[in-house]
């Protein structure tokens, strides 16, 4: 089973509270940064980490891989950091 199949297999699972799982996001620097479409019109702090979260969080009705890939990347970086 490849990564995409694994991720799609989890469709019914509740989504973790991350900006990258929020309805109001677009990719900015995939997978690390997203743009918050709620904050952007106000012009403040609209580029946020995929793994952050705020009180306006709305679950995304469609599946994307931002959080999955950002978590994997963070874990990879953490392992590499420990190796050093």
């Amino acid at each position: 089973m490849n990564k995409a199949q694994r991720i799609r297999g989890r469709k019914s699972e509740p989504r973790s509270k991350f900006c990258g799982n929020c309805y109001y996001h677009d990719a900015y620097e995939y997978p690390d940064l997203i743009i918050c479409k709620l904050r952007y019109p106000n012009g403040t702090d609209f580029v946020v980490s995929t793994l952050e979260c705020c009180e306006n969080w709305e679950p995304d009705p469609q599946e994307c891989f931002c959080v999955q890939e950002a978590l994997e990347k963070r874990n990879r970086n953490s392992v590499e950091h420990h190796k050093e």
Partner: protein
Amino acid sequence: MKREDFLRESVVQMRLNSKMTVNELIQQFSNSGCFGAGRLSTACDIFEQMIRDDECTIFLAMAGAVVPAGLRTVISDIIRKKLVDVIVSTGANVVHDLIEALGGHHYKGHWLVDDSLLYGYHIYRIYDVFVPEEDFVKLDMVMADMFDEIARENKGHTLSSRELAREIGSRLRDSNSILRVAYEANIPVFLPAIRDSEFGLFYRFHMKRHSEDKLLRVDAFKEVSEIVDLAIKSPRLGMIVLGGGVPRNTIQHAAVTAGKGLDYAVVITMDRPETGGLSGSTLEETVSWGKVKKKAAKVMVIGDALIVFPMMVAAVLERLGDNFVRKAV
């Protein structure tokens, strides 16, 4: 007509060789004179005639995703060489010009792909071209800021799409950008369907940040007089269409409103006439409206503009030679 009139010119079988140039291949197409080959060779002849006609204003209509797929530099080069005088484009083609101007890219993809997977990766598909979402997002931000600046500088003055395109072109630094090259060459760019593209989102973002009195003002009707006046001033009118749609009819409307009709017309399309839609309508049908003259040099090439147009341009450039300079109308 008599029987012999139908049998006047025989098909000459094509001959190919390993050293032939694009124009030599087109000459072989002309010898055949049949099907797409014949139409493409006629299109090259008509394009060359337009260019060599010192009194002809040449309009280029761009619809369909010709910029994402790779025609951007072909178009900016012919603008730079002044082989066209007026551009009429969908907003979308200019949006993709801007994506590249700001460092974004279009990627070779495939039409057989799991689109839900692309969705998950925030990648958009244009048939077999992929575009990352972040290129659009970053463009939205840059363009909303640019709209802020243009609005500030114009202080409530209402712009046409031509004026807006010029304002944007003046702010770009990419020497391959269609808008930048058009600005430098003083070639007008009309965007008659501007809101039906990412431009609509640029405006929405800009709008959400400002009160009514500080908004950029663009009047969709202002350009009508501008383009019609261009047609009125031009002794003769030529049109090259990539695709069709709104850009094609904007030119045709200008021609008929100027009371002239087009003298030259080349339409490259894969659309069909049976729907009554303008992208597939034949040039004969266009004659019935007075938009194209009955005696105009005209041809419709049924084919992919991404194949046909570069061949057309390459053949005509070869015919003109490196030292050719077109006289301004």
